[in-house]
C-alpha cells in the first residue's frame, strides 16, 4: 500500500510535468509561427495574418519593383537582406544583429520605438505585429538569426 501511494504521487507529478505554455497561444494571429527563419518568412513576411496585418512582401519585394529601402523580404532574399546588414534609413543601425534583438533595428521598427526613422512597420498604420509575434522574432535573433 505504501509503495502504491508513493507511486501515485510520483506519477501524478510527472503527468503534470508537461505544463509549458503553448507557443501558439503567444503567436496569436499566426498560430503556426515558430522562432525559425523559414517560419518567420512564411508566417510574417509573406502572409497576411488573421488580424488583418499586411504581409511585408506587399511592399518589400524585388519582384516587379524596387523594394523600399532596398529591403527585399521575399523568399530567397530576405535572410541575406536582414542579417548583419546596415539600415538604409538610419545610418549606423544594423537590421538584425545575431544574438542581440535589442540592437537589431528590425525590432525597433516593428515595435515602433521613438528612435526609428520613418514609420513603424508595417506602414499600413496597423494592425501591427502583436507583442507575442515580435517576441518570437526576438527569440529567432537571440538564437543567432540562423537561416533555418
Amino acid at each position, binding site marked *: 500500500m*505504501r509503495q502504491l*501511494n*508513493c507511486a501515485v*504521487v*510520483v506519477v*501524478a*507529478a*510527472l503527468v*503534470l*510535468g*508537461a*505544463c*509549458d*505554455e*503553448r*507557443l501558439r*497561444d*503567444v503567436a496569436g494571429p499566426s498560430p503556426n509561427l*515558430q*522562432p525559425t527563419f523559414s517560419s518567420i518568412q512564411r508566417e510574417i513576411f509573406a502572409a497576411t495574418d488573421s488580424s488583418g496585418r499586411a504581409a511585408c512582401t506587399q511592399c518589400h519585394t524585388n519582384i516587379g519593383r524596387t523594394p523600399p529601402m532596398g529591403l527585399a523580404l521575399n523568399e530567397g532574399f530576405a535572410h541575406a537582406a536582414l542579417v548583419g546588414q546596415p539600415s538604409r534609413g538610419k545610418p549606423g543601425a544594423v537590421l538584425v544583429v545575431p544574438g542581440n534583438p535589442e540592437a537589431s533595428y528590425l525590432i525597433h521598427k516593428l515595435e515602433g520605438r521613438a528612435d526609428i526613422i520613418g514609420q513603424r512597420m508595417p506602414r499600413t498604420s496597423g494592425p501591427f505585429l502583436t507583442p507575442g509575434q515580435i*517576441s*518570437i522574432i526576438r*527569440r529567432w535573433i537571440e538564437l543567432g538569426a540562423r537561416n533555418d
Partner: protein
Amino acid sequence: MVSMSIPVFAQPAPANSSTSAAAAAQDDDPDMDPNRAQPDFTLATLPTNLRLPRHKMGFRVTHRFGRPLGEGDLGDLAADLFGLDAGGLIGLEFRYGLIRGGQIGIYRTSDRTIQFFGQYELLSQRNRPVGLSVVANVDGTNNFQDSYSPGLSAVVSRELGEYGAIYIQPAWINNTSLQPRELVDDNDTVLIGLGGRIRVRRNTYVLLEAAPRVSGFSPGAHHVSFGIEQTAGGHLFQLNFSNGIGSTLAQVARGGSGNDDWYIGFNISRKFY
C-alpha cells in the same frame, strides 16, 4: 515525543463500543502528540516533515507586505507602519490528513494563484536518522485557469531532540518562466531548499530558510527568509522577513526581488487536533 496534557478541543464522550474503539485508536496515534522539534507544517514558506494526523486539519494564513523595508527613509517607513499600509500578498491554506503520513492541501494567494499539494512521509525519524517525505504540488495562476507550474520535491529532515530541526529540500518546478519553452533558455527550475528552526525558549523558535536555484530559470535573487515565532496551544504566530513576497514553491523558484529588498510578513497557523 511529549504527550499533550491539555487537549485542544474537548472530545465528546463515546456513544458506543465502535466509536470508543476509534477514539482509543486516535488516542494511540503518535501523530496526535505535539512535536516540539517541528511545531508547524512549514518554515516561512518551505515545507517541514511534520505529520498531520489522519482525518485532522490544519489552517494557515500568510501575509507578505508589499513595501520593501529599505524603500524611502525611516520616517517614510514609520509613517507606513513598516509596510503595513502598502498592501501585500495574502494567502490562505487548508490541509487535511488523508491517510497516515499523507496530507493534501490547497493554498490560494491574493494574486489569484492557487496551489494544490500533497505530501507523503516515506521515512520517519522515529526509527531512522532522518525523516523523508515527498511533496507534489501544482500552482495555477488566475484561479487555476491559466498557467500551471507543477513541482516535485523531497524533504529531508533531521530533528535535533526537542530543540528544533534542519531541512534539505531538493525540488524541481516546471514552467517557472511562464513562457513557451521555444522562447526561453530554461523553463524549469531546480532548487535546493535549506532551512532550520531552533527552539530558543519553551514556546519560542527562530527560523531561517533559503532556496538557492542550482539550475534552470533563475531570475532575481535566491529566496531567503528568517523569522521568529511563538506557539500557543494549537496556534503558531510567526513574524518573518523575506527578500521577496512569493509564498508558493513556484513563486519561490522565480526568486526574490533583490538582496537589498526585505519585506516584513507573518504567518498564523492553527491545527485542528
